[in-house]
């Protein structure tokens, strides 16, 4: 399977400690927009991610790649930052680090400087040109789990996740669709019958 089987945790964090980031290679940070789904449930609107291996330019390139590969208008950078965190973890492996370092450098060269500063349209064109390369595959494959398998994404896209602790959907909307007629009892018996 091209998607690694891993679980991601990056949570909007409170009380950002500068000390924590002193040894970091790069720091990405941001603020969840007021009024968004995520800001409503996050303990703090501020978030930050410190990398171990990726430098600032590399981290920003990966973040931009994630946003160009899976462009969601309102999805906060905090979610795309999980991709940076997971790619950063991949850099612990020497062979993978070489692949990623070279790939990022090449992409920035092709962008004439900084891939992150290009328009989405230009980024998309560049990505299409490298679609067959293993660097592209490595980042794209990681996106599928990094971006879509985390609590913030669940909230953003409206997926409710684990439901056992809440007693299933029997009384929580499994059949709450009312914009089409209900099927007859024979096709779809109620639980009371």
């Amino acid at each position, binding site marked *: *399977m*091209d*998607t690694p*089987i*891993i*679980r991601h945790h990056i949570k909007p964090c409170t009380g950002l400690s500068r000390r924590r980031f002193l040894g970091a290679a790069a720091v990405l940070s941001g603020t969840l927009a007021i009024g968004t789904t995520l800001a409503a449930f996050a303990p703090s609107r501020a978030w930050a991610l410190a990398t171990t291996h990726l430098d600032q330019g590399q981290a920003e390139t990966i973040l931009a790649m994630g946003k160009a*590969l*899976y*462009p*969601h*208008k309102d999805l906060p950078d905090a979610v795309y930052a999980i991709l940076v965190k997971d790619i950063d973890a991949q850099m612990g492996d020497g062979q993978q680090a070489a692949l990623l370092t070279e790939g990022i450098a090449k992409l920035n060269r092709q962008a004439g400087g900084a891939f992150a500063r290009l328009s989405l349209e230009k980024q*998309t064109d560049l*990505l299409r040109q490298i679609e067959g390369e293993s660097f592209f595959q490595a980042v*794209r494959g990681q*996106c*599928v*789990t990094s*971006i*879509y*398998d985390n609590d913030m*994404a*669940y909230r953003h*896209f*409206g*997926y*409710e*996740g*684990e*439901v*056992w602790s809440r*007693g*299933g*959907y*029997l009384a*929580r*909307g*499994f*059949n*709450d*669709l009312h*914009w*089409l*007629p*209900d*099927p007859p009892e*024979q*096709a*779809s*018996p*109620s*639980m009371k*019958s």
Partner: protein
Amino acid sequence: MAKFDHTDDSVVVIIGSGAGGGTLANELCQKGVKVVVLEAGARQSTETFIQDEWKSFSQLAWLDKRTTSGSWRITKDFPNLPAWICKTVGGTTTHWAGASLRFQEHEFRARTHYGEVKDANLLDWPITLKEMEPYYARAENKMGVTRTNGVPGLPGNNNFKIMYNGASRLGYKKISTGHMAINSRARDGRGACIQQGFCFQGCKMGAKWSTLYTEIPLAEKTGKLDLRAECHVARIEHDKAGKVTGVVYFDKDGKEQRQAARVVCVAGNSIESPRLLLLSESAKYPDGLANSSGQVGRNYLRHTTGSVYAVFDEPVHFYRGTTMAGIVQDEAEHNDKRGFVGGYELETIALGLPFYAAFLNPGGWGSDFASYMDAYTRTAGLWIVGEDMPRESNRITLNQDVKDQHGLAVANVHFDDHPNDEAMREHAFKQSTAMYEAAGARKVFRTPPYPSTHNLGTCRMSARAEDGVCNKHGQAHDIANLFISDGSQFTTGATENPTLTIVSLAIRQAEYIADQMQRRQL
């Protein structure tokens, strides 16, 4: 639970504990037969099942390496994951969606009924629907299948409401929440479905039938079952006369063990079962066990599948409730006016956000892909399940260049779609699209087949020894005390989801084995 000696050659050894192996074990134990079940996976429970798609996948799925070849898209997207099946006590009955349909009469006579199909290796089953009916009835009762034995149908979820409306507007008539081995009422010591979704991740309610918490504990209660989890069978041994005498396996510590046996039953699913027969080659059986026909591993079937997803303006939340929440059966019959033989079912499907992202268009990216993800809560979906054509060239072989953690050659799965499969899939895609458009869909799109969950046919049963691997009892043509006890024995794939037929065949096989043992024929 019993503990039998490794040298006890009076036991029946069953390899695998899923729909075939788990059912066979219980049926034999109930008749007083001593059984050792060797299961490669670990034992989970309703308490340990995880409602998180990737975590659950790591917990239940068969992740030992496999390789792929052929023109199917799986070789590109999931080259080492040809099948989404399980390595755990209970096998793929932990993961299945619960659809429990009897085969149609003509599907047992595919060669006769469909005629000759070029480049297909069609054959009639050596059994008929009439012979199977009493066993289907027992299986339905055992599994608590809805709309049988007075068990009411399940209530349909939002995904089904859309299917129902679209299909009925298209003129389809056979639309319902189906025959499901999911309790709509508490029954048989198990609770009723509370519409959680996560049917694929192990039912935490235990409402969906699985051998893990039905057949296996019942068998353990008899004192006749010795279930050994995390035991991977490496080869089956035989004596000079050619009869099998036992199995060699690696236990959970990776230590090699040997278990003697009076009878060996192979139920490792249609990739592992032929792999094991091939790995068991010997001077006497240079092409592998039970392979005088050369058919071991051939005729690999995976059903003609594909998915169709549809985006609406209004909320759907298709992940709420049973995964297979409803079915359209109007296309299930054979009607060659459509340009293909056999039929197909349309069954609702839903994936959680993580798996939707992974399977919607493997390898896909860009703004279209993102827009489908944005519409996640407004999406409905279905899965196509149709009869695919057996082909000798679609087969499981040993890949001697790649070894698993035990140093054994891994299975290579080769598959090319037959033109009949392609014609059927195209028809099903078009009908599904029309159906969703009739229900008001904004956008409808097709998804290629997932890694296979229905793996069938690689040790097929046949009337004549030269056409297949086993007879109508699943007994190997070449070796009387060797049995095939899973979906590998299917002669053809039929349209229906296979589990009910696997369970029915296991009940039938248990009767035969117990009877033959009593008569000292085994």
